[in-house]
């Protein structure tokens, strides 16, 4: 089947089971993002949450028969990567700008 057609009953049940599993994982990631003692735990949980969002959009695309959702999933994976790198840069340099202190050369 293509995602342009609505899935059969068994396929629909399997896709729903998969999306429930992904949703459970997303809530576990949110638990860690809330608890996380360091900022890196929160960044790890948010990165995982973004990846799971891509999966959820793909599965929902098949479930509802709309193949244009796959483009959104692709875009979301790229945005997730850029946001993650930007956040890590912020935690490392406390700034989003290019004016970072020069790195000292190790001997």
């Amino acid at each position, binding site marked *: 089947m293509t995602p342009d057609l609505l899935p059969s009953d068994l396929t629909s049940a399997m896709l729903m089971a998969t999306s429930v599993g992904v949703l459970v994982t997303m809530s*576990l990631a949110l638990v860690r993002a809330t608890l996380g003692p360091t900022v890196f735990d929160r960044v*790890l949980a948010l990165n995982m949450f973004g990846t799971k969002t*891509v999966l959820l959009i*793909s599965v929902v695309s098949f479930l509802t028969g709309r193949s244009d959702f796959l483009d959104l999933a692709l875009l979301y994976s790229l945005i997730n990567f850029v946001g993650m790198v930007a956040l890590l840069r912020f935690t490392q340099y406390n700034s989003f700008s290019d004016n970072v202190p020069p790195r000292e050369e190790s001997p």
Partner: protein
Amino acid sequence: MIALEVISYCFLIAGALFSIIGGIGLVRLPEFYSRMHGGGITDTMGAGLVIVGLILLAGPTLAAFKLFVILFFLTITTPSSSHALAKSALSKGLQPELDVESEVELPMLGEGIRQ
């Protein structure tokens, strides 16, 4: 055709199970560097198996190609972001908790390279 669908169901359910296992690991493991292992399981096995299952379900269509591109970008971006995360944590001086006393000095990037 039915066989292909059954194989894709197996992939989808296995991917969902790996996702849940990794999520439990993310919540229950004791410290940051072990939690990265739980996150890594969901990013590789979870996402990989679910997307391969969807590709098998889609057959040779444009949707399968889009899913393949998504899988390609995920396999490029998630290891590099994990690497950046671990390097950032190490350079901030976050020490891994060990069961035994380590005789080897762990290289802390924060002390050696950057002040």
